[in-house]
C-alpha cells in the first residue's frame, strides 16, 4: 500500500512538475482571491487583519476545489483511470498517493497565501507553530475529503459544478477550526483555545482518511 501510494504521489507530482498547472494557475488564483477580499472589505487594515484567518482559509478552500479538479482531470483522458485500476495498484495506496500529491501542492500554496496575508492584510502571527500545525492538519483533511469526492464525481459530466457544492459544506469544520486556530495564534498567549480545534482537525483527518483507505476501491467503481 505504501509503495503504491508513493508511486502514485510521485506520478501526480511529476505531472505537476512538468505541466505547472498548480503553480501557474491555482496559486495565482489564490492571490487574486486575497486581492478581491481586500477590495470587498475596504482599505481598512484593521478589518482586514481581523478577517485574515477566515479569508486565508476561504482562499485555501477555493484552491482546494481547483486542485482536486486538476487531480481528477489528469486521469480523465486516454482511459488513464481504467489503466490505473488495471495496473494492480492497491486502491488504498492509490487513494493515499493522490491525497498526498494534493496535500503537497496545497501546503506550498498555503505558505504562499500565508505570506500574502501577512504582507497584504497586516496580520501579525504570534505563535507560528500553531499556524503551521493548523495548515498541516487542515491540509490533510482537505486532501482526504477532496480526493474522496473527486473520485466519486470523476465519471460525472457535471463534475465541475457539482464538486464544490458537495465538498465545501463537508469541509466546513476545517474552515471553522483553521480560522479559530489562526485567531488564537494571532492573539497569542492562549494556545489552549486552539488545542481543542487542533484535536477536532485530528479527528476529522482520521475519520476521512480511514473511510478513504477502506472504501476507495468500491468508490472507484461508481465512476
Amino acid at each position, binding site marked *: 500500500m505504501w509503495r503504491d501510494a508513493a508511486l502514485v504521489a510521485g506520478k501526480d507530482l511529476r505531472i505537476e512538475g512538468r505541466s505547472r498547472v498548480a503553480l501557474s494557475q491555482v496559486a495565482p488564483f489564490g492571490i487574486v482571491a486575497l486581492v478581491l477580499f481586500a477590495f470587498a472589505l475596504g482599505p481598512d487594515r484593521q478589518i482586514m487583519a481581523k478577517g485574515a484567518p477566515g479569508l486565508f482559509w476561504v482562499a485555501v478552500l477555493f484552491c482546494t476545489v481547483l486542485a482536486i479538479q486538476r487531480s481528477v482531470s489528469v486521469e480523465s483522458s486516454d482511459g488513464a483511470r481504467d489503466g490505473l485500476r488495471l495496473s494492480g495498484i492497491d486502491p488504498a495506496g492509490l487513494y493515499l498517493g493522490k491525497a498526498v500529491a494534493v496535500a503537497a501542492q496545497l501546503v506550498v500554496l498555503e505558505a504562499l497565501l500565508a505570506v500574502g496575508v501577512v504582507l497584504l492584510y497586516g496580520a501579525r502571527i504570534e505563535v507560528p507553530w500553531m499556524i503551521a500545525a493548523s495548515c498541516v492538519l487542515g491540509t490533510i483533511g482537505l486532501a482526504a475529503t477532496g480526493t474522496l469526492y473527486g473520485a466519486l464525481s470523476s465519471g460525472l459530466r457535471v463534475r465541475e459544478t457539482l464538486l464544490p457544492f458537495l465538498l465545501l*459544506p463537508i469541509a466546513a469544520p476545517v474552515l471553522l477550526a483553521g480560522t479559530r486556530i489562526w485567531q488564537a495564534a494571532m492573539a497569542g498567549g492562549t494556545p489552549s483555545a486552539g488545542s481543542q480545534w487542533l484535536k477536532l482537525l485530528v479527528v476529522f483527518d482520521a475519520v476521512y482518511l480511514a473511510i478513504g483507505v477502506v472504501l476507495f476501491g468500491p468508490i472507484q467503481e461508481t465512476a
Partner: protein
Amino acid sequence: MTDDLATVPPAGADRARPDDAAGSDDAAGPVARVTAPPTPSAAARTTERVIGLLALVGTAATVWLGIWVTPPDKVQGDLVRLVYIHPGVAWVALYLAFGLAAVSSLLYLWPRTRSLFWDRLAAAAVEVGVVFNVCTLVSGSIWGKPTWGVWWAWDARLTSTAVLLVLFLGYLALRRVPAEPEVRARRSAFVALFAAVDIPIIHFSVNWWNTLHQGATVLNANLSPTIHGSMAWTLLLGFVALTLVFVWMLLVRYRIGALEDWLAANELDLALAERQAEGGPPPAAPPGSGPVDGVPTDRVGVA
C-alpha cells in the same frame, strides 16, 4: 392486448433482437423488454391511505388545539403556539429523515442487504427531509423575529440545521445526475455516508464556534418548566401528527420513485412501441389514432 405491438416487425428498431422478427412463437417478442410498472399491493395502498388519513386528522387536531383550545403564554403570548409545530418539524427533519437516510444508505452499501429498496427509501427520506428542514428554518425564523429581533441568528442549532440542509441539497443534486440505477444508488449512498460522518463533527465545531463567539442564545428555556396540561398534550400530538405526515409523504415518494425508475428504464421502449403501433399494419386494437392517450400502461401489462 399486446398483439398490435407484437406483430409489428421491428426491422426499423435497431435495438430489437433480430430473431424476434420471425419469432411468432414468442408472443411477447418486441415488447419483452417493457416490463409492467410496479404496482403496490392492495394492503400497501390501504396502509398508505390509512396513514394519510391519520396524518390529516392528527394535523387538523393539532391546529385546532394549538390555535383555539390552548391558552396563550404569559411571556410570549400567541407566539408560543409555534411551539406545537416547530419542534415536531425539527424532530422529523433533523433526526427522523436524516437518520433514516443514513441507515438506508448504509444498508444499501452493506453487500448482504444491497437492494434498490434502501436506495429509494433513502432518496425519499432526504427529499421529504428537505421539505421539513425548510419548514424548520422558516418556522424558527417567524418565531425568532419577534423574540430575538432578527430573522436569523448564528446560533449553533440554526447553523447546523442550515448546513444539514445544504448537505441534503447536495445529495439531491447528485441524484439528479443521470446514471444507471445501481451506479446512482451507490454514489448517493456514499455521499450520504460521508455527510452522516460529518454531522457530529459539524455539530461540535459549530457549538464551539458559537460559544466562543457569543453567549449561548436563550432558546426558550423559560418554556419547558411552565408547560403542562393542554399545552403538553398539544405538543405531543404535534409530534405524532408530524411524524405521521412524514411517514405518509415517505410512502408516497417511495411509490413515485419506483415508478420513476420504471419509466426511466422503459421510456425508450415504450416510445418505440408507440411509434411502431402508429405505422404498423391495421391492428385489431382500438387506438389507431396515435399516442394521444399518454403512457399506454394498459397495453404493456401483459409483457
